[in-house]
């Protein structure tokens, strides 16, 4: 079937709009992180948030209403960050209750209420811009698929779109359950960069696929790989933040000066970041496993061997091993914390290597899926 030129053009226009919206979202997250007061409170609130959680557990047990039920506490576990008023409520209530104390709380009280209000709007605006970008990108992917009458993940350009879409989807999904807006800066920056690269360098005009790719295993195998990589990307953003925040925490405890302190101060405590990262990786790892297995099954159908150590297969296997190593490292004394985080970073580096270096410079049986 011929390519629908109108839809193909629509797809290109939509992705251009999507990139602009994402960029706006990134700027919003950056401004929000840099100037929003919540960051400072959260930071001090490392202890705070736990107390708030304690109180919230109490609040949700009806019979115990006496203790702290007058305030409807949000907790890190259940409050959506979209409901900003509430999560701020929890932090500042905790502050005024005098649990937090120490440096940082002074700035968050009455003085900054007007800029607080503004910053909340910026934060919400960043989320809204990201959602708009997400819708535009989704539209771009759908219209490209309709234009070529197939799933639009057959080359690097299409794959980059699908991958970033998956990771923004994962981010928004987590955001609807947990206050992880802080991830926005570290996630949206690579998303915008990747999309820029896709549009400027990797772009290829829409075309049908070669017969070897005509299989529903394409849908299963590649879709699973995209979802897993997208979620890994979110976990990687959290891990990067963990490394910065952890270094800061260690240095401050030791009383040493630290570079990028301003960056670290706007982040949540390292434990929260580490836990968020772990949960995302633990979610994505089975999907990645499934993607590799689905690829092997397809290879069995198409090439007659389920595993041939094709470069792409080899690197998918390496990625699998590294993330398996991460999951184990995190449960091993002496490896948890920073070391496990380095392993997780290495894991994403192998995905990047597989995508760029193997696709472009190393030929193998996956070559047709390349540029």
């Amino acid at each position, binding site marked *: 079937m*011929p390519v629908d030129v109108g839809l193909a053009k629509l797809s290109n226009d939509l992705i251009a709009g999507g990139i602009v919206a994402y960029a706006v979202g990134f700027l919003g997250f950056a401004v929000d992180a840099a100037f929003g007061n919540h960051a400072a409170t959260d930071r001090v609130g490392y202890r705070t948030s736990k107390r708030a*959680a*304690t109180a919230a*557990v*109490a609040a949700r*047990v009806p*019979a*115990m*209403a*006496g*203790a702290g039920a007058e305030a409807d506490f949000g907790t890190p*576990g*259940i409050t959506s960050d979209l409901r900003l008023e509430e999560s701020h409520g929890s932090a500042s209530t905790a502050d005024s209750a005098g649990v937090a104390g120490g440096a940082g709380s002074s700035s968050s009280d009455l003085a900054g209420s007007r800029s607080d209000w503004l910053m909340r709007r910026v934060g919400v605006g960043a989320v809204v811009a990201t959602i708009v970008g997400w819708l535009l990108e989704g539209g771009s992917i759908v219209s490209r698929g309709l234009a070529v009458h197939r799933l639009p993940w057959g080359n690097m350009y299409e794959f980059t779109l699908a991958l970033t879409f998956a990771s923004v989807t994962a981010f928004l999904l987590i955001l609807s359950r947990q206050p992880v807006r802080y991830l926005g800066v570290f996630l949206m920056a690579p998303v915008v960069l990747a999309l820029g690269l896709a549009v400027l360098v990797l772009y290829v*005009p829409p*075309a*049908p696929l*070669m*017969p*070897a790719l*005509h299989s529903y*295993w394409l849908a299963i195998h590649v879709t699973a790989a995209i979802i897993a990589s997208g979620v890994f990307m979110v976990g990687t953003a959290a891990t990067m933040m963990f490394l910065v925040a952890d270094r800061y925490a260690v240095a401050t405890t030791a009383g040493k000066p630290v570079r990028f302190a301003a960056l670290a101060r706007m982040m949540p405590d390292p434990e929260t970041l580490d*836990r968020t990262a772990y*949960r995302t990786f*633990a*979610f994505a*790892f*089975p999907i990645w*496993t*499934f993607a590799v*297995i689905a690829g*092997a*099954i397809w290879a*069995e*159908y198409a*090439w*007659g*061997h*389920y595993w041939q*150590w094709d*470069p792409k297969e*080899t690197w998918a*296997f*390496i990625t699998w*091993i*590294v993330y*398996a*190593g991460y*999951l*184990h*490292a*995190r*449960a*091993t*004394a*002496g*490896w948890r914390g920073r070391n496990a985080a380095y392993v997780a970073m290495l894991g994403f580096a192998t995905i990047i290597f597989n995508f760029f270096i*193997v696709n472009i410079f*190393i030929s*193998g*049986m996956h070559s047709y899926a390349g540029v």
Partner: protein
Amino acid sequence: MSETPIDVEETPFAADVTKLDTVPDAPDEFGTRQRAQRSPGDSIVALLRWAWYSLTSMRTALILLFLLALASVPGSILPQRGSTDSFKVVQFYAKHRTISPWLDHLGFFGVFGSAWFSAIYLLLFISLAGCVLPRSRRHLKAMRSRPPAAPRNVSRLPLSASWRTGEDVDTALANAHSFLRAKRFRADRTASTVDAEKGYLRETGNVLFHLSLLVVLAGIAITSFFSYSGTALVKVHDGFTDTAIDYDSLTHGPLVNVAKLPPFSFNLDSFEATYQRGGSGNGDANSFDAHVSWQPNLRAPMRTRDISVNHPLSTQGTNVYLTGHGYSPHFVIRDGAGRTFDEVTPFLPQQGTFQYQGVVKLPDAKPSQLGISGFFLPTAGADPTTGMPISIFPAADNPAVVISVYSGDLGLDNGVPQSVYTLDTSKLKQQALTEMHPGDTITLPNGLGTVTFVGYDQWAAFQINHDPGKQVVLGAVSAMVLGLLFSLGIRRRRMWVRATPDGAGRTLVEVGGLTRTDVSGNFDDEFARVVSSLQASITPLGPQETQGSADPLPVSRHEED
């Protein structure tokens, strides 16, 4: 064993819960103990024990895991023998003459079969087995035993709640017991407590995942011993029978009885290819279909079906894949002595063109041996710049051949094996060079005879694989995914309810909960829900009565770090 290559699930639930804070970071118990024991006078047994404990420790397993990843890297970067691009090894050799013999010697052109690669994964699997087998046994035992007894002080657990009730101790515990049972906890009642635990599937999944890895290895071993794989080029109207002689190439494991391959056979009735016409992908293949009639054994009835890319024929554990296709020009040659040869010879596709190249050899022709070397052009046209005949499309719209005819010595009599697709022209003399269309005949000079290009036929290339290990591997990897979902998605949690008379005619109810913090899901919420449901059946006295009691914040959360 405090360190194991599996997620250290046990430690947070160590028998003495009050030590929770220190247990997860405890040093390698075996490492330190064994190091202390290793004095010069020690026996060889102690050394072996030390080696075994070191090998099965988590640190070793992690290092082996990363070594395996690292060892795979050269295999993806350097060309590998036995893969589809093994000719690149030769190219690489020619390009890097000094380093290549060294790389070759160290196995870098066959990484995945090399001794060092095998050593890493075998050690890893031994380490895994040494850990997962005892762990499975422990888990089986844990599933049969009763839930762990309540700690002395339930209120010091990470999550706890307490209240006073008018119910007596027995009623309170009976209610708690039946409620927790209904919530699918494994609950056990003692004189003053209910001990409950839930989420055993987590460890089950964990063990399942790691045992499956061992089964995958077993499957791979079965493959390497019992599988065979070969290729066959079959002309349209010709047949293939699954015997060693019908293969162009055949590789098999050491335990395969080549004389007793599955007795299936098939006939290639026709071949159909469609191509994209016009546009940017002009000439790209859209579909390949081999129509075959086949039978699983000689006594079975013939049946027909299509074999296409992604749709192999499967019979008796053997798969027949379509891997390629091409044309066989049909020549009739009459030699100088008047004998006719009817030759339909497969020509092979030439990379990057729509042409097919091949050779016809007639060692029995008289007065001189004859050889034909040339190209088949499915759609003949003229090269726009040179005017030379080329093929402009892969479908046979305007078939033609461009051939050279040679006479002389084909070089077949000296016993050195020769490819059927190349002609050694060193002792041959070119007699003709011409383009022919179906029906054309040329007469060779010097009374050597005539060559007629009758037409063409098609051929298909098949790959035939038999791999009894792959079902084992498929089953094992499916179990692996299932195990992963359980072990990463389910959390194990324990709850204890203690009821004691408070001496004032009321009963003090204490509830405690314990789990790991990093698994997804929210135990805080679940705990709160369980507590409030428990309070529905074990009614607390009104808030005014608890005022001023010893527990001003009845539900509390102790941080584990």
